[in-house]
């Protein structure tokens, strides 16, 4: 097995490769260090968000007051009857769209197409910013019109407010940080900073962005739909 470990065709694939990667006295992960570090960060962030969602699970199970009806609370009316959860659905589609544009930016980065990479990253950041804007709208509607507070609300279990503000707030903070991160990398791409270094940085920024989308998939399901 060992003689095949570093052949000219690259490291051994599959389970043999797994054994090689871990047993040889050398670098384990065949990725740029920045990418490995981003993955470590994302795994730790997974733990944070799962702890929040598990905390939500626990307070929702143990509260003796009825849980407020999310579908009606997050309904929005465009002139006619309120449409249930419509703003959240739009936010979900916006975040998915931004994940798509990010995937394209990564691809064009590796093709060394600076202009397209720049514009797809800017588009991704713009979708992210509009997501945060809608979240600000949602928060102010909930706080000012419905009177939801972290310690209580007029509908039912007071834990609803604390869970809502903590989880969506922490996610919104991630999106906001992502917008800044993406714009920073995008402008450096346009200036040609990565011509020599390579365009892995676009993929690393992309990993962070897709993770933010991934977290929203779980928040959308557990907080808004169930």
């Amino acid at each position, binding site marked *: 097995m060992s003689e095949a470990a570093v052949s000219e065709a690259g*490291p051994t694939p599959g389970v043999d490769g797994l054994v090689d990667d871990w047993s040889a006295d050398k670098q384990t992960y065949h990725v740029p260090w920045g990418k490995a570090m981003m993955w470590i960060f994302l795994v730790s962030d997974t733990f944070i968000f799962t702890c929040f969602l598990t905390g939500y699970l626990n307070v929702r199970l143990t509260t003796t007051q009825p849980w407020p009806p999310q579908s009606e609370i997050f309904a929005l009316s465009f002139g006619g009857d309120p449409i249930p959860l419509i703003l959240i659905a739009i936010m979900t589609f916006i975040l998915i769209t931004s994940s798509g544009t990010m995937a394209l930016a990564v691809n064009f980065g590796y093709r060394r197409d600076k202009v397209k990479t720049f514009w797809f990253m800017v588009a991704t950041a713009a979708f992210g910013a509009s997501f945060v804007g809608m979240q600000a709208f949602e928060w102010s509607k909930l706080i000012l019109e419905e009177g939801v507070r972290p310690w209580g609300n007029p509908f039912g279990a007071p834990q609803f407010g604390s869970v809502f503000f903590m989880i969506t707030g922490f996610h919104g903070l991630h999106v906001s940080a992502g917008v800044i991160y993406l714009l920073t990398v995008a402008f450096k791409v346009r200036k040609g900073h990565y011509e020599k270094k390579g365009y892995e940085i676009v993929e690393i920024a992309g990993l962070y962005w897709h993770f933010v989308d991934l977290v929203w998939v779980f928040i959308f399901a557990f907080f808004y739909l169930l």
Partner: protein
Amino acid sequence: MSSEAGQQHPLGIYYKIWVLLFVLSSFSYAVDFFNIQGGMRWGLVILFMLLKAGFIVAIFMHVMWERLALIFTILGPPIVLLLLIGFMSVEGFYTSGTRYQYMGHDPNAVALTPSDLHGGEHAEEEHVEEAH
């Protein structure tokens, strides 16, 4: 497919996954829109959620093309979180059970909706206008 050469794949797969994520999101929104309740709601929402999460991680985050050493590092540790979720739900059901049993709360209480609150206000305003 070595990562050192970068994750370079045809654009087609990204477009397909993109469309698929839109479709799956529409499905989970439809579950709420058509007011499906009970076990069916939980089953469908969690199914669409896991499919979406799987496609994002596998394709958009390129995990399916990574080497096993990295894949296990990414997907291994979060498995212990399932244990946490399991423990906390067992504990949660026990706590709520004892609260309902010994503290006199009503397990069938129904939450108020925005229309209960705002609808009530409007009804009152109309009533006041009539009185004048």
